């Protein structure tokens, strides 16, 4: 099902610059309903509040990492089917495998381009 431009998207990253970059690209792609969280714990709390259709998350974050948040999402009956795209500098093969095992929907390595993000969103929402 193609992505609904009105769907609420959560961008989780401890770096404010990265949140702004992802938010800007999403806006250029037509997604304007975007919220932000600074770490996995804050992200999880927001997601459990409901209403989100998609998550873009970093890996390395304080308090709760992206992979921990992903596992928590998949363990929560209410939000376990939520698509999660990881955008991270963790470019090791073991990281990718760990993310796949945890149930990631797709994976982008930083630095990335707008085209890559668009392509991954198209793959998540065919």
């Amino acid at each position, binding site marked *: 099902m193609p992505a609904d431009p009105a769907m609420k998207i959560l961008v989780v990253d401890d*770096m*404010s*610059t990265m949140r702004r*970059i992802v938010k*800007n*690209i999403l806006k250029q792609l037509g997604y304007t309903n975007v919220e932000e969280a600074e770490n996995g714990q804050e992200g999880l709390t927001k997601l459990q509040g409901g209403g989100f259709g998609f998550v873009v998350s970093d890996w390395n974050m304080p308090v709760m990492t992206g992979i921990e948040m992903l596992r928590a999402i998949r363990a929560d009956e209410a939000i376990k089917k939520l698509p999660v795209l990881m955008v991270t*500098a963790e470019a090791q093969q073991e990281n990718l495998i760990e993310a796949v095992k945890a149930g990631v929907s797709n994976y982008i390595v*930083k*630095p990335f*381009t707008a085209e890559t993000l668009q392509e991954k969103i198209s793959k998540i929402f065919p």
Partner: protein
Amino acid sequence: MADTNGHLYAELGELARYLDMTLRKLDDAGAPITTMSSQLPQAATHLEGLTKLTEEGTHEVMRLTEELQDSHAVVVGLLRKAAAAVDKIQAPPCVACLLRESQQLLAQEDQQLIDNRERLAGTLTKASETLTKGANGGCVACALTQSILSLSQDDKRLIEIMTALSFQDLVAQRVKKLTTIVHDVEHKLLELVVVFGLKHEGATPEVKTDATDMLKQLKATNETSMKQNLVDDILGKFGFN
């Protein structure tokens, strides 16, 4: 037995000399170690400051880029309205306009192409008629379309600028790792200071190294740098306009 004892005493003597020499060396190293251990927290602070500086600079570039993007969106909207108005009043359309419309129709989805077959045929007929009559130059619609295209290419470049700014995140992550390493080294040095009872900075003269100078420069940059408005105020007092 006497030989064995003699050999043992000789070995013990050698060991005692070695221990004494090691302790002297450690004592010599005491001052640099205490100095370095006191410099490391400053170095870590400066590294963290570097992250903050790049973050602020990146946000400023992003703010300007976003302003350009918003401004482009407004201009493109106005140009599209103008192009639509020109399309209505410009007769006959120029060859380029007709061919462009044909290309747009061809680029559409198959089903739409089938639906628009008659329209496509009509447009191509018009194009061929206009070509026959002789193409006109200076078409306003073409100029508007060209402007919209140029702006949309600029928009792509603006997005590229935004994404290129992700370097800041990568720099920040590396600096964070470096800071962790510096804190770790600091901790180990402090352990050495405690274990061997090395004298602290206050009691020993500061060992001057390149790092000492660099840290002083960094400290001065942070503590005494002026904002431009303060510079201008001071210059104003000296009669500069």
